[in-house]
């Protein structure tokens, strides 16, 4: 439907509040767009349960659509199915890398944390190897599993010696 398409197009302008180079569409958080008798409806999925950016995203969607002349509408959050980093588009991954954040490895390539809780390995790395977003080297190592936001870990490159953020597979 042309109305819904124009909303999808507008949503490309709404970027992640924390990572300005990636749009909500690239992140895969926009699930549905609908226009009905009550106005427009955009359904989004939260990334982490406690991601503080979610309410900012909702506000940004409202203000973007209002600025473009759309009348009354609403943003709804939908929890299921749960968001995964696998939903980040290839373009989103490129943008993350250009910005200096290593994009998340695909989930299916990880040993499932849940299935093997009885088998403990000290300091299991988050991924087989995380290439450096600056120089591309695979000689990188994890500094801290926790970084500046809930979604990121801190790594450093042993080749170019620069630190970088890694978007954790989730």
């Amino acid at each position: 439907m042309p109305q819904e398409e124009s909303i999808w197009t507008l949503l490309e302008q709404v970027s992640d509040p924390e990572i300005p180079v990636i749009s909500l569409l690239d992140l895969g958080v926009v699930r549905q767009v609908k226009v009905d008798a009550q106005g427009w409806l955009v359904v989004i999925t939260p990334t982490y349960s406690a991601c503080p950016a979610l309410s900012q995203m909702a506000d940004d969607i409202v203000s973007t659509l209002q600025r473009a002349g759309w009348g009354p509408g609403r943003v709804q959050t939908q929890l299921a199915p749960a968001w995964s980093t696998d939903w980040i588009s290839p373009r989103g991954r490129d943008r993350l890398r250009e910005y200096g954040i290593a994009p998340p490895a695909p989930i299916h390539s990880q040993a499932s944390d849940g299935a093997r809780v009885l088998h403990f390995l000290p300091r299991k790395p988050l991924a087989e190897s995380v290439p450096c977003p600056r120089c591309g080297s695979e000689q990188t190592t994890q500094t801290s599993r926790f970084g500046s936001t809930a979604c990121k870990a801190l790594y450093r490159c042993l080749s170019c010696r620069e630190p970088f953020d890694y978007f954790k597979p989730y």
Partner: protein
Amino acid sequence: MSAVATDSVALAPTDYLLHLADNALVLGQRNAQWCGHGPILEEELALANMSLDLVGQARLLYDLVARRAADGSTEDTYAYWRDASQFRNYTLLELPHRSPLVGYAQGDMDFAITVMRNTLYTALMVPLWQQLCDCSDPDLAAIAAKSLKEAQYHLRHACDWLVKLGDGTDSSRQRMQGALEHLWPYTAEFWVSGKLEALARSAGLLVDGAALESSWNAIIDAVLEQATLTRPPAPEGYVSEGKVGVHSEHLSFLLAEMQSLARAHPGAQW
């Protein structure tokens, strides 16, 4: 906000949802006490991140309760405007980070208590969230699916430390064993089937208690063995009753601090 499930499914009782939410909020608040006092910088970040996850889970659950109540209440009503006797969290989670091995004069927090408590709780929550992913309440099932991912990650982190410190030096093992023995009696509350469980069952929310207990025991036995710690004997005597609102003296202090700002400015909005 989100659509609310209709009456054609079995909805989780409010008290049960509050029990899950209060567990997350109280533990999140407790662990956040390490902010500024963490043993190392990475653990500062870890505890703060995991507390944030827990607070997020609490928010989703409180928000669900508020929407179903449809009486103008919000997540804030449940977090800030209830008193200790209305909270439904396990007593285990409100205890300070202090063990008998750390002198009261110091008032210091014992990291062994933090690690042991996180292990005991997350070892319960992983199998519980797994069960609730398939429960008859679709909103709770959706929250469970998100919370499960986070709980698995919290469990792994707690167990990493448990093994490192348990199978560590004589001093770290002694403190870890002390923490285990101090907290162990509070786990008896997990298995008592009382009012809360009867309410859940009568609402059609079937949680297999025996399967839960057996999963928990399997995880705990495995991690204690790797940590070279000794599982204490089954607790006897008083069983804590936090989940029905009878709390230790510690909860009201925790809540007083947490709720003070909201209560100083009732109705304030950011």
